[in-house]
């Protein structure tokens, strides 16, 4: 291996690592607020790419039907839950089902108008983000106080349901989206692609935005309060359901943005999300599912290890990446004191 190969591998590893990093941050966020290990995180990434690719092929994205199906199920759930209180029912519907309906209408409108690339991107992000509240309402809200293990099992179920729906609405074949920029820059002896620079810039921007959001906005503070102490937050008037819904929605938005970044780099399938999300999860584990900066660093490390192991031992690439989790778990189990769940 010479310097240029190492540089190329580093570039590749950093690009993938940046995307894993976004997913790791979303996982930490959802876990901190709701104690849910959010396995379906990757599905948002896959749905984003497939939606945008459908737009590009001039096909009505299956997302429209997915959103309508979600909205219908949520409406049914709200009717059952608030059948005695029509006022609350309407408010609950507006929070959980309305975004899906609006998003479906936007996607359909953008498709019908043959709108440009920018509008397609915007519609895709809105569509995927609006799945967040609906998924939280359907899957997690009814069991919000259940033990972590129950929530994990629910997550696995949501993952399988979304993958199945993905196959139904998008088909079995993969898709790529066109690159935001085809330009390359010469940096010394090596070429850096514009797309990977975009990935770095986006990731850094999003991390900064998240930091500001948590530090200065009321919603961000509410989320932090819920993460720190659920009962305490509730006592000062923060609805745990609202906080949970908001965190899953943010995770969906982050998933959508990651999808935009990864779409031009690789072929994405209806079930690709899981593995991408899992690598983000390895990163998040390094941070103990609690620390944002360590999770981010861990995810970038995963990307680098992946790139270099694909060069040295491509047959064992995944094995090497996922084995990373073992020393981390060992180290964590020795250094942290275990305390019972409240």
């Amino acid at each position: 291996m010479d310097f240029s190969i190492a540089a190329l591998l580093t570039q590749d590893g950093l690009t993938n690592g940046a995307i894993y990093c976004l997913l790791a941050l979303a996982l930490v966020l959802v876990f901190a607020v709701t104690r849910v290990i959010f396995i379906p995180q990757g599905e948002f990434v896959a749905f984003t790419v497939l939606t945008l690719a459908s737009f590009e092929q001039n096909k009505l994205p299956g997302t429209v039907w997915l959103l309508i199906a979600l909205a219908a199920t949520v409406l049914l759930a709200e009717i059952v839950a608030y059948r005695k209180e029509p006022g609350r029912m309407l408010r609950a519907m507006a929070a959980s089902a309305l975004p899906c309906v609006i998003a479906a209408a936007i996607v359909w409108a953008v498709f019908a108008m043959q709108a440009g690339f920018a509008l397609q991107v915007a519609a895709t992000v809105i569509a995927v983000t609006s799945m967040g509240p609906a998924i939280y309402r359907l899957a997690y809200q009814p069991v919000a106080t259940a033990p972590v293990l129950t929530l994990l099992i629910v997550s696995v179920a949501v993952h399988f349901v979304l993958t199945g729906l993905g196959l139904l609405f998008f088909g079995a074949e993969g898709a790529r989206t066109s690159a935001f920029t085809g330009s390359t820059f010469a940096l010394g002896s090596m070429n850096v692609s514009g797309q990977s620079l975009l990935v770095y810039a986006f990731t850094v921007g999003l991390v900064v935005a998240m930091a500001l959001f948590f530090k200065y906005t009321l919603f961000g503070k509410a989320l932090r309060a819920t993460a720190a102490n659920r009962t305490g937050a509730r006592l000062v008037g923060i609805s745990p359901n609202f906080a949970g819904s908001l965190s899953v929605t943010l995770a969906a938005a982050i998933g959508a943005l990651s999808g935009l970044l990864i779409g031009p780099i690789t072929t994405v399938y209806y079930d690709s999300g899981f593995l991408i999300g899992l690598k983000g999860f390895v990163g998040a584990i390094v941070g103990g599912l609690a620390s944002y900066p360590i999770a981010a660093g861990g995810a970038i490390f995963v990307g680098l290890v992946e790139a270099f192991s694909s060069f040295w031992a491509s047959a064992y690439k995944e094995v090497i990446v996922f084995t990373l989790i073992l020393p981390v778990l060992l180290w964590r189990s020795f250094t942290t004191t275990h305390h019972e769940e409240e």
Partner: protein
Amino acid sequence: MVRILCAAIAATLVASAANAQLKVGATLSLTGPAASLGIPEKNTIDLWPKKIGGIDVTYIVLDDASDTTKAVTNTKKLITEDKVDVIIGSTTTPNAMAMIDVVAEGETPNISLGGSARIVDPANPKTRWVFKVSQHDSLMADAVAVHAKAAGITTMGFIGYNDAYGEGWLVEMKRSAATAGIKMDTIERFSRTDASTTGQVLKLMAANPQAILIVGSGTPAATPHKELVARGYKGRIYQTHGVGNSDFLRVVGKDGNGSFLPAGPMLAYEQLPDSNPIKKVAKDYITQYEAKFGPRTTFGGHAWDSYIVLNKAVPEALKTAKPGTKEFRLALRNALENTKDVAGVHGVFNMSALDHNGLDNRGRAMFMIKDGKWALAGAK
């Protein structure tokens, strides 16, 4: 009264004998990693006629989710509960291999759609019940080696799936390449789910072989292909018949132009000479398929070939026994084994006790991707 009853019973018996039904079971990978192969196969089975050999056919299609255990469970269910006369599937080599023992024990003929020669070779008491309609990977590997040798290529790199499909090809390709005097030194792996193959591609390019063979199925095979082109690889790129669908062309885009692959002649049947017996069969199938389900795939073609061989074998078997009986299944097995000169969409089948595949060189053609379309390629 008794007489009327007897007459009624007799009439029913006669009617049921006349209505003897052929039961065709299938276990296909409709979901999971091999779904893009399994779905066109199922679509094709939807095109199968309602009658084969003059008797009604019932179809039972099960999904094995690309999972070996599920394929075995499905096979057991089809044999013991549904009592089918023949089983089609499964889609992938690992699933098809796992089904061999079950169909042998249940004495039910099985027409497999998987790719590896190991499904039916070597012939033994177990594979006695198994037939296979897709081209052996060895047949295709030979085609690649011959084609590369004709173009004066002496070094070839390999990047293949990290699974049974990739391993099967690697073994066959090493053998074919050695025969053709082609050196294969750089061997890399990737998996269907890889987001990036930069590492592998850099290593291949460092070795700089004259040609690189990419072994994958469907669109994932485009990932290393696009990477090679993006890194400026100047040699020749070979793909395998695993990419024979329009989705691959869509994803690989213009980067695919100028690369070669061996595949069944159906892929571009329009370009075959009229004298070729495959052309008519392929035209018939593809016209029906494309009218209903969209662009052709070679995978669907294998499912159609299962129908073609069954259509010839069922009338033979009906001469000796009634469907639904053990005797019929044995007769059907024997009739399948005696398939002679039957033209399908992928080639001409000539089976025997030692060869349960029966495809020869007519079952493969070299294609080139030209302007985003399949084109029959020359000899080198």
